[in-house]
């Protein structure tokens, strides 16, 4: 077990973490402020990946794909919000889950109608294709770029939430929603902005995931489950919580997948370890969530309600 393996895994965890953060940020705001459970958030990620990949394949430019994907997904998100979801805000969570699950099915079929059933071909832009030598090991440049973009977005969101008027309203909405609307703030417009922001971030995550994952119908579901784990561990409604929890989940998941089976081989019989190690590793983030829920039901970094 070398230091470079540990460092590589830390970077891998960080990279998965920031990708999860982009998704979790939008989901946690919508859940925390609008009290709306949106299972279709993963579908917006998928839409972002498809728009980005199709555009960059057609134009040969990754940047054009990026320019199309983020606003494109934002528009799709706002349209879905206006057409399908606005009537559901006042309904209970079960109705919201059923309706947004329906949207998941709808989007999975819709991308197949538009782009075909086969996975789309996507590639890393040539200027990011390659590896970088870091402290004696090679790391894919594209993954470093993901980490950089993710951290930049986190910094931007920190500024937006803590230093701007919109951010102040978002913070106020998360803790004292009725007071905010009583003060004459257009809560409907605020909601639409939050939803659009979340959709845009999901689109950005999809854009960056396109070159490393298979761009295909249904790609949003797996990532949605991990995102839900992140917002629950982080504390619903908290951007800071989503950021820290995403990094924790990313690092725990990658570290667990590598080192848990190795560690188990050391302490128990080979066959048992071979069977139990990978199974336990894939459960690790859910175990973490269960422990967090048992001891801090509001998450690790909850929004303080007044």
């Amino acid at each position, binding site marked *: 077990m070398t230091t470079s393996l540990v460092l590589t895994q830390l970077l*891998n965890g960080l990279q998965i973490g920031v990708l999860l953060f982009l998704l979790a940020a939008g989901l946690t705001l919508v859940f925390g402020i609008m009290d709306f459970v949106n299972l279709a958030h993963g579908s917006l990620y998928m839409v972002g990946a498809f728009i980005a990949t199709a555009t960059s394949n057609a134009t040969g430019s990754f940047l054009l794909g990026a320019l199309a994907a983020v606003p494109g997904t934002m528009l799709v998100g706002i349209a879905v919000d206006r057409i399908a979801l606005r009537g559901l805000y006042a309904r209970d969570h079960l109705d919201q889950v059923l309706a947004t699950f329906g949207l998941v099915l709808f989007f999975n079929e819709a991308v197949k109608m538009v782009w075909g059933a*086969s996975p789309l071909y996507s590639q890393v832009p040539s200027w990011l294709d390659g590896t970088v030598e870091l402290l004696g090991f090679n790391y894919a440049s594209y993954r470093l770029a993901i980490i950089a973009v993710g951290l930049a977005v986190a910094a931007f969101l920190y500024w937006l939430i803590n230093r701007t008027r919109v951010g102040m309203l978002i913070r106020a909405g998360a803790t004292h929603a009725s007071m905010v609307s009583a003060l004459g703030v257009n809560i409907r417009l605020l909601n639409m902005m939050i939803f659009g922001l979340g959709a845009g971030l999901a689109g950005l995550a999809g854009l960056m995931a396109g070159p490393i*994952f298979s761009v295909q119908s249904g790609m949003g579901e797996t990532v949605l489950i991990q995102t839900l784990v992140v917002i629950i561990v982080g504390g619903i409604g908290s951007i800071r919580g989503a950021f820290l929890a995403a990094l924790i989940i990313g690092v725990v998941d990658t570290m667990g*997948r590598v080192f848990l089976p190795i560690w188990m081989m050391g302490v128990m019989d080979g066959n048992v370890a071979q069977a139990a190690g990978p199974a336990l590793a894939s459960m690790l983030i859910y175990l973490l969530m269960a422990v967090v829920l048992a001891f801090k039901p509001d998450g690790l970094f909850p929004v303080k309600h007044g």
Partner: protein
Amino acid sequence: MQHPRTWLASALATAALAALPLMAQAQVKIGFMAELSGPQGPLGQDQYDALMLVVERNGGKLGGVPVQVIREDSQLKPDVANQIVDKLIDKERVSIITGVTFSNIMMAVHKKVTDREVFLIGSNAGPSPVAGAQCSPYFFSTSWENGQQAEVVGKYAADKGIKKVITIAPNYQAGKDFVAGFKRYYKSPTANELWPALNTQDFSAEIAQIAAGQPDAVFAFLPGGLGINFVKQWAQAGMKGKIPLLTSSTTDGIGLPAMGDAALGLLSGTFWGPDFPNAANQQFVKEFEAKYKRIPSQYAAQSYDAAQLIDAALAKTGGKVDDKKALLAAFRTASIKSIRGDFKFNTNQFPIQDLHMFEAVKDAQGRMTLKTVATPLKADKDAAYEKCTMKM
């Protein structure tokens, strides 16, 4: 009083309706069930397209009799597959069902269909129980027993004298089967075995472990989207060209277009490739490409042979499907020009066939395809057939 023309028209309509059952009797109904939606939909679509290629080439007939193909999507759900099979057998009264993409679906319907004495012509999944202890005279496979596509890779690795191998496969039954298949001919102990979860998207943790382990080769069984993710990430991590990647069901005809250059040069093992020179295969590939504008995958190839098998069997019975014994004999003795070359059924009614290694290359038009590079297993019988004792 009715207008004479109206009267005549209704009389004709009644006569036409009365004639319908007669026509229906002359038609043989065939059920086709596969995964046609969701992420695995392209596999079932290739199976369906190849079947219909044969049916439509013959003017809607198989074995000289008109056939009606009833297309059903099992949605990768065993319960849905069960309902479809009930419907096909009880309502549609089909005598032959073909297709079936995934092993869990096959395990869910195999007993039910064969117990009802309906012929099941599997054109993809070949779980080992179906090839072994649970074999049935009513089941024929035109694909392979699950382990075979991994055994050929293990044999290749052993032939090449590769010393240190790390395996990677999803942590579920088929993953275990494929790694076991690899080890049937590759006898040296593996250096490490990685078992990522079936829904893994990011393989960076596994790739880092492989890089740290420095093996002579990696054996991967990562079907569908898993393979696309892994192959892309493998190339991006700069591993391609450093450590040979040997695969089963990973760089297949469905995944290759999405992998692109990332897959170039990777090796995989299976029973058929689009470059086979035999005349039957050349005709199949040419017609499939002309009709569907893509290179056929192995799933299309398997289904094409299933269509040929049904065609040959029905020709032998003159289109009669009621005499089960005669139809069974016809299936057993049917001789087809398989596009894989030599083809013969073993005692478990799975093919005895050559298995090859393929390299992912670009064709003249720059599309990704497979090129035959070696044939490690000749006239191979699967590992399960000795457990099969056919009662009929």
